């Protein structure tokens, strides 16, 4: 049986995007439970069997669709330069 280890998230980012703190943003797959507990240097918030993870994720994605779109926007803006951010917000204000 394979297991999925879920990495702990940045709580500020999750709050900003309206996502639950333990939403699985970064995960890894492992062949044993012991190996899974050591993933991400132990910085994990959950471990699930792969089958359960895949089953639950499609529902979770639907449930948090809007928040995930917001997360992408937050990530994109955080990658922009100051000038880029100003241009982005001006565009948002006047052209949307």
């Amino acid at each position, binding site marked *: 049986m394979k297991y999925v280890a879920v990495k702990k998230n940045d709580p500020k980012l999750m709050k900003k995007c309206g996502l639950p703190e333990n939403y699985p943003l970064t995960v890894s797959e492992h062949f044993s439970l012991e190996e899974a507990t050591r993933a991400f240097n132990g910085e994990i918030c959950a471990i699930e069997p792969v089958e359960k993870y895949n089953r639950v*994720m499609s529902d979770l994605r639907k449930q948090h669709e809007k928040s995930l779109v917001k997360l*992408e926007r937050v990530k994109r803006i955080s990658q922009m330069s100051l000038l880029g951010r100003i241009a982005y917000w001006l565009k948002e204000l006047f052209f949307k």
Partner: protein
Amino acid sequence: MPSANWSGSGGGGAVADSVLTTRGDLLTRDSSALSRIAIGSKGYLPHSSGSDLEYQRLLDPTKRLMIFEDWIEGGAAGASVSSYNWNAAVGTAGVLSASTTTVTGVRNLGIMRHSVSTDTGFANASTLTVLKIGGGRIFFEACIQIDTLNDGTNSARMQVGLNSTTTAAQNANGVYWMYDSANTKFQFCTTASSSTTATALGSDVVADAWYRLGFEINDDATSVTPYINGVAQTAQTTNIPATSTLLHLSACWGKTAGSGTLLLYNDYIFYDQLFSGNRHT
């Protein structure tokens, strides 16, 4: 043992048969009779053992899609990626251009050079965002070289494979190889709606070394097997994008910290999909 006659009416009795058939059928001689083996419904000749050998898949465009970019068709050295009919997504001092400086040896031909300097700049070479997984087995491979490794001052993120990103940011959906400041190894990633399964594979990345990074997605996209330098690694089965998601084939290089120049060299990109049904169904 009688020999087959491929020359039509030229002598030997194989009047109606020619090796140049419309669908690449194969002519064989069984005892004294010539017979034709049809290309079959899958677009390739099945091996007698029943296994589907890679090289036996003949070129039937209704059954497969193959892209091989070796970066040699550009007009001149230093040519932009758009000269190769690839989409150049560049931002904040990102540059994509054909490189002659890293071409060494008689077989190491065209190379695309991705250059980023300003923080958040990016230089991405991509196809149209039209590719979908789940419609048949896909094999991908890119040959890349990192010029200078990430350090505490300067870092960049490489994402090569089937991607959704158009900037330096990490994919929201994709099946791809990544190198970034979070790991000294290449990470194989599957990402669906921003949830990523990331697996660090192989040894630490070495600067100025060529790596062949590949993956194989199974027919219905439920499992992806990564390859490093042709060696298969453990398959991933989580966070594979939905089959309805549109992706582009691309090599993305984005700056994540610092103002120094960082380069990614891309020797080739190979994409091969064997459709599980006909193209138009």
